């Protein structure tokens, strides 16, 4: 594996991804969705908590949809369309491919999230909320989650079809955000359900670690330590998923 080849594949993947016309449509839709915040601002009589909550949720929702759209077939397509032949018949390894695809897609996901974040920050500024630095922190957390999510999609697309990858990713996303609440709730129920949910809680990623949107809009103090821990958590999960993606791809008969 060479850093140079990873960089070359990253650049190529990024270029390919950001030239997708459907992506432009989705980004435009996302921007419009966030601009709806202006309408909400009128309805809520300028309540900044409402404006920020809706805006940040919009950036998260559309960013996640775009990431799934871009990532669900990222490796599958390479295998099915045999474009991998061009890469692997050259002095490039399976590891170069997996990492290059991951970083290229992650770069595109970051770009789209930042574009929508810019619209969000513009809306808050326009509504008289100034530069929402705390909102930007929530976006940074979202980018950490996107890193995990891109790795998950890279792994899923190496082992299954785009449709299966999309469904699996949606389920993991849902359970990842739901598990913390579920663990609290089953404490009262106990028994097998508690054991099952506890096991699932430790097995599945806890994506609530990346959700600071409520903390941000309600002005709860923020510190650096949870951010570093969340970054390490995302990096660990991503590394494991990418390793498995590599192992599965290497075993595939091209």
């Amino acid at each position, binding site marked *: 594996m*060479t850093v*140079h*080849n990873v960089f*070359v*594949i990253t*650049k*190529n993947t990024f*270029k*390919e991804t950001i*030239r*997708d016309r459907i992506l432009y449509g989705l980004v435009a839709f996302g921007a419009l969705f966030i601009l709806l915040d202006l309408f909400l601002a009128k309805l809520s009589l300028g309540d900044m908590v409402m404006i920020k909550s809706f805006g940040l949720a919009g950036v998260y929702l559309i960013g996640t949809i775009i990431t799934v759209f871009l990532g669900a077939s990222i490796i599958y397509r390479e295998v099915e*369309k*045999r*474009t991998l*032949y*061009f*890469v*692997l*018949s*050259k*002095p*490039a*390894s399976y590891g170069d491919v997996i990492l290059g695809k991951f970083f290229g897609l992650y770069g595109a996901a970051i770009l789209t999230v930042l574009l929508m974040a810019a619209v969000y920050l513009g809306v808050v500024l326009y509504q008289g909320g100034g530069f929402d630095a705390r909102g930007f922190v929530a976006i940074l957390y979202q980018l950490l989650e996107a890193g995990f999510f891109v790795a998950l999609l890279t792994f899923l697309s190496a082992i299954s079809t785009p449709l299966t990858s999309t469904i699996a990713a949606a389920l993991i996303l849902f359970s990842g955000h739901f598990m913390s609440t579920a663990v609290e709730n089953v404490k009262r129920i106990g028994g097998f359900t508690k054991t099952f949910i506890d096991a699932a809680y430790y097995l599945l990623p806890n994506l609530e670690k990346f959700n600071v949107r409520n903390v941000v809009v309600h002005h709860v103090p923020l510190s650096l330590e949870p951010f570093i821990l969340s970054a390490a958590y995302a990096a660990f999960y991503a590394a494991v998923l990418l390793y498995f993606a590599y192992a599965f791809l290497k075993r595939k*008969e*091209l």
Partner: protein
Amino acid sequence: MIEIKDLKKMYGRRAVVDGVSLVIEKNKVFGFLGQNGAGKTTAMKMMVGLLRPDAGSVSIAGRSVLESETREIIGFMPEAPYFYERLTGFEFLKFCGDLFPRHRKKTGAEYEALLKKVGIFEAKDAPIRNYSKGMKQRLGFAQSLVNDPEYVFLDEPLDGLDPIGRREIKEIIKLLKQEGRTIFLNSHILYDTEELCDEVGVIHKGKLLYAGSVKDFCSGKPLEDQFIATVEAHNK
């Protein structure tokens, strides 16, 4: 020299390539002939390191093809290639060139010269999705030459080309031979194979039925007749 020893690949219980052994000397054009599903493409994929054989080995210039350094000196054009459709022809070629450590410093002019060589220079800045089948075939051919390879593997290089395109690609293959390169090609088009190749191999149901000079194989008859006779004799 390309040395293939007892190469075997199984898909399930079926041997797709079954004990193929071949030696191809340097600076030869070798044509690998066989019906659809005979095992030509699978064999070629093992030769360029895309597939791992279940048994046997492939060595090129004395080194295993599975070594990254070996792939520095080979070029491969897959059959009916698919591309990154949103890139331009130039960008794709540069992407391929950048994957070779020795060719990273290639200039834009050098890539353009290669595009001129295969006759698609005019379309260099157009997205590949707008290319015709023949243009894609030429681009696939160009990327196989991007590293000035000593050994070139071409899987059906003349498929999808019009007569003029075929003639041009044949001229380039002849030129590559003149430059001292070794060329291994799979082809269905026996007329062209006869014109281009010094040696042929006939593969049928994974087994190599013949390997040797075209002259000896044909012994005065057209290559197509001799190929059909060889395959039918084996089927009886």
